[in-house]
C-alpha cells in the first residue's frame, strides 16, 4: 500500500523533529492502525487526512503520549523516545489540541488553560499573571471570551478556542491540531489559520487534521493520507487538489459533494414561529418553514440559533407569540412532546448532549425512541439489534465491534450514530444543528444526499450551520441571524457567501432587510 515517500524539502527545516516508524495500535486485539511511518519536520505543516474512523486521532494520540503504540517506535531528533504519558510528550515539546473538547466545565477559562502548570511561586498562585497570559493567548487566536468566564457557560466554539489557547501555551516544537476548526465559523477560522502559519514560521512542526480539504489545500506543505488504519501515502501538497485528496481518502474517484437539486414542490407552511424570545439569546424572531423545504440558518457563534430551537423544544426558558405546527397552535414543553409532534432536533454538542459516551451503541441509538423497541414483554433486544444493524448500514457507521461504547467511535461516526438516533423517531420536521461537524467529505455528501431525500419524501428540514457553502449548496432559503435577531433572508441567487457574511456581521443590515419581505 505504501506510496513512495515524498522527497525531503530542503526549503523546510531539514532533519525531522519527530519520526514515527511502523507504528501500530490495537484496542483489545482489534487493530486500528498498522504500519504507519511518517516524519514531521520543523517549519512544516503536515496534514493528515482520511475518512471518519481511518485512525487519524488514534495516530495523534500515539504521537503525543496519550496512547502507547502496540508496535513500532518514535524518534525525536534522531534519538529513540518513549512517552509514558502526555506529560512526557509535553515536556519534550509536543502539544496536542484534541478533537474532543477536554475542559472542566466547572472551572474558569483561565483555570482550564493553566491546569497542571499554574504560574506561581512557592505554590502560591499568581492569579493576575495567569489571567493576563490567558487573555493574551486568547486574543492572539482571536477568541473574545473573558478569561474569567466559566467554561460551562461559553459556547462550544469558544471552548474549542480555549482548548487551542491551552495547547499553545508555552513553547513547542511540535503542535498537533486534531480538527481544530470543526466547530468554528468562517470568521473564526481565519485568525486561527494565521496563528498556525505564524507557528510554522517560527520553526514549529505542525501536524494538522481536518475534513475541510480547502483548508488543507491552503495550509499544508505535505499531506499524509490514511485509509482503514493504513497509510495510503505521504504527498507533497503542491498541486494536490481537494478533489484528488478526497479520491485518495476514499480509494476511488470522488464525485460531487452536493446533491443535484431536484425541483420540488415547496408547499404551505408546516412550522411557524412568531415573536420568539429566549432571554439572553434570542429577541423577537419569527420564521416559517414550508413543507418540503430545506431552510438554512446562518450566523456567527453566539447568534442564538441553537438557543432558538432549544427554547422551542422546552429545553430552556423561552416565550413565543405563537407556534403553529401544520397550522395548529402548538407548544412543546419537552423534546419528547416535540418528537411526538414530529419534530426532531439533532444537537450540535454530540459529546455533551447527544450520546452517552460510556454506553454501548444500541442503547444510544434507541434512547429517544424507546417506543420503537417496546413490546408488552418489554424491550425487544433482537429488534434493537436489527435497528442498529440497519443504522450501521444506512448511515455507514464504521466500527470495529458491536461491543464498542459510543465514546470509542471516531468523532465522525459518533455524529452518524447521533443522526441515526434522531431519525429513529421518524420526524416530519428535522432540525439539524451543525450536521457535518467533523464528518469526512464522502460522508458529508452522503448526509447531504440524505437530507435531500428527506425533503423529497415530503419532510421538511432546518439546517443550522456555520459552513456557508453547505448552506448555499443545500438550502432552498437561508435566514441569517445576528445577535439573537434575524438579520436577513436570502434565497435563489442571492445566496452567496458574501451576502451571508454581510448579514451575519453587519448591523447596517439589521431589521431593514430582515424578515419576511425578502420571502419569494
Amino acid at each position, binding site marked *: 500500500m505504501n506510496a513512495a515517500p515524498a522527497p525531503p524539502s530542503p526549503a523546510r527545516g531539514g532533519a525531522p523533529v519527530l519520526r514515527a516508524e511502523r507504528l501500530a495500535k490495537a484496542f483489545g486485539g482489534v487493530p486500528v492502525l498498522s504500519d504507519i511511518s511518517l516524519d514531521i519536520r520543523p517549519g512544516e505543516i503536515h496534514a493528515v487526512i482520511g475518512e471518519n474512523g481511518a485512525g487519524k486521532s488514534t495516530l495523534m494520540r500515539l504521537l503525543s503520549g496519550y496512547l502507547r503504540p502496540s508496535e513500532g517506535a518514535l524518534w525525536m531528533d534522531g534519538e529513540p523516545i518513549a512517552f509514558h504519558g502526555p506529560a512526557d510528550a509535553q515536556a519534550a515539546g509536543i502539544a496536542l489540541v484534541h478533537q474532543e473538547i477536554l475542559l472542566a466545565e466547572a472551572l474558569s477559562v483561565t483555570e482550564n488553560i493553566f491546569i497542571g502548570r499554574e504560574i506561581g511561586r512557592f505554590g502560591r498562585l499568581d492569579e493576575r499573571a495567569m489571567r493576563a497570559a490567558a487573555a493574551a493567548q486568547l486574543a492572539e487566536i482571536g477568541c473574545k471570551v473573558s478569561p474569567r468566564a466559566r467554561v460551562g457557560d461559553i459556547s462550544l466554539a469558544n471552548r474549542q478556542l480555549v482548548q487551542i489557547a491551552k495547547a499553545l501555551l508555552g513553547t513547542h516544537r511540535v503542535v498537533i491540531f486534531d480538527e481544530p476548526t470543526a466547530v468554528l465559523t468562517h470568521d473564526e477560522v481565519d485568525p486561527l489559520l494565521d496563528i498556525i502559519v505564524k507557528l510554522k514560521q517560527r520553526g514549529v512542526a505542525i501536524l494538522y487534521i481536518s475534513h475541510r480539504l480547502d483548508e488543507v489545500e491552503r495550509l499544508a506543505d505535505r499531506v499524509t493520507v490514511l485509509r482503514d488504519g493504513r497509510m495510503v501515502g505521504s504527498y507533497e501538497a503542491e498541486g494536490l487538489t481537494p478533489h484528488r485528496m478526497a479520491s485518495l481518502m476514499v480509494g476511488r474517484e470522488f464525485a460531487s459533494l452536493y446533491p443535484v437539486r431536484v425541483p420540488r414542490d415547496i408547499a404551505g407552511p408546516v412550522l411557524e414561529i412568531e415573536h420568539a424570545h429566549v432571554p439572553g439569546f434570542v429577541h423577537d424572531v419569527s420564521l416559517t418553514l414550508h413543507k418540503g423545504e430545506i431552510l438554512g440558518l446562518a450566523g456567527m457563534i453566539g447568534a442564538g440559533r441553537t438557543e432558538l430551537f432549544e427554547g422551542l423544544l422546552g429545553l430552556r426558558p423561552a416565550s413565543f407569540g405563537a407556534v403553529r405546527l401544520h397550522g395548529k397552535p402548538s407548544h412543546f414543553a419537552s423534546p419528547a412532546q416535540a418528537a411526538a409532534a414530529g419534530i426532531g432536533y439533532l444537537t450540535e454538542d454530540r459529546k455533551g448532549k447527544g450520546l*452517552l459516551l*460510556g454506553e454501548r451503541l444500541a442503547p444510544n441509538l*434507541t*434512547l429517544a425512541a424507546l417506543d420503537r423497541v*417496546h413490546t408488552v414483554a418489554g424491550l425487544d*433486544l433482537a429488534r434493537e439489534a436489527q435497528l442498529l444493524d440497519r443504522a450501521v448500514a444506512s448511515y455507514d457507521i464504521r466500527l470495529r465491534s*458491536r*461491543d464498542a461504547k459510543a465514546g470509542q467511535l471516531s468523532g465522525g461516526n459518533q455524529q452518524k450514530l447521533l443522526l441515526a438516533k434522531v431519525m429513529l423517531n421518524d420526524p416530519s420536521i428535522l432540525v439539524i444543528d451543525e450536521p457535518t461537524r467533523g464528518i469526512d467529505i464522502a460522508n458529508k455528501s452522503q448526509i447531504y444526499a440524505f437530507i435531500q431525500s428527506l425533503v423529497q419524501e415530503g419532510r421538511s428540514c432546518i439546517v443550522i450551520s456555520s459552513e456557508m457553502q453547505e448552506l448555499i449548496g443545500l438550502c432552498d432559503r437561508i435566514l441569517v441571524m445576528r445577535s439573537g435577531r434575524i438579520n436577513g433572508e436570502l434565497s435563489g441567487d442571492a445566496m452567496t457567501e458574501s451576502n451571508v457574511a454581510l448579514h451575519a456581521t453587519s448591523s447596517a443590515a439589521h431589521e431593514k432587510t430582515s424578515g419576511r419581505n425578502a420571502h419569494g
Partner: protein
Amino acid sequence: MADLAAAPPRAEPGWSIGWGDAGPFLALAALIAIGFLVNPDFLSANNIANVVTRSAFIAIIAIGATFVISSGGLDLSVGSMAAFITGVMILFMNWVAPSVGTAAIPLGMAVALVTGIACGLMNGAIVTLGRIEPFIATLGTMGIFRALITYMTDGGTVAIDRSLRDAYRPVYFGDVLGVPIPILVSLAVALVAAYVLYRTRYGRRCVAVGANEDVARYSGISIPRVRTMAFVIQGACVAIAAICYVPRLGAATPTTGLLWELQVITAVVIGGTALRGGRGRIWGTVAGAVILEFIANLMVLSDFVSEYLVAAVQGVIIIIAMLIQRMSKR
C-alpha cells in the same frame, strides 16, 4: 465493514451475567472458601440458609437503591423509612386485628406498600421539585421518618399483636420446597427489578439520567419523573423488605433500621453499580448483600478474632472484596 460480521456476540447485561460483571460473584466465592477454611460448619445447609435468608432484607432494599443510585441519586433514609413502615404497619394491624382477625395481615401489607410508596414519593419530590442534593434531602427525611414513628408510638417501640404473631410467622420462617420464603421473595424482587432495569423503557431512561442528564433531557426524557420513580421503587422495596421482616423482628423499635443505609449502599457498590450513576447491576447488588451478611456470619463463627476487633476485620474484608472485584475487571 468486514470487521462487523466478525464482531463476537456479546453478553448483554441482563438475565445472564457477563464476565465483566463477575467481580462480586468471585468475591463471594472467595469468601465462601475462606469461610469453609475457618469453620467447616460454615457450609452447613442450615447456616447457609440462615445467612442467605437474612441477607434477603438488605438485598431487597438494596435492589431499590440500585435504581436510585444508577439514576444518579442517593437515599440515606431507607433505614428509618423501614422503621417507619414497620411501625405504621404494626400499628395498623394491631388496630384492625380485633375486628378483622388475621385478615389484618394482608391489609397491613397493603398499608405498608402504600406507605412505602408515599415515602418514596416524598423523597423524590423533595429532590426533584426542590432541586436539593439527594444526600441532604434524604438525610432530612431520615430524621423525619424516625421522629414520626417515635412520636406515633410514644418512644418508638411497638410490637405486633400476639394474636397475629403465629399467623404471620411463616412469611419469614416458612419455606416452599425447602427454600425459605424471604429468599423466594428477594429472588422474585430481583427478577422483576432486573427485568425493569434491563428490559424496559424505564430502566433505560433511569440509567441514561444517571449517566448524563443533558443527553437524557435532549432525548426527551423527563428527568424529574425518572428520578422520582426511582425513589418510589426504592420506597416499595423498603416496604416489601419490611413486610417480610416484621415476623422476624416482631416489633418496630427506636433502633430498627439504624445504619442500614450504609449497608445498603455498600451492597450496591460492592455489586458493581457506579455510585456516580449511569450503571446499575441488580444481581451484583444481591451478591453484595449476601457478601455483607456472610462477613458478619464469619465473624460470629470464627473464634480467633477478639470481640473488639470484629469491626476492623469486617472493614478489611470489605476492602479486600472490593479489590477482588476490581481486579477481576481487567
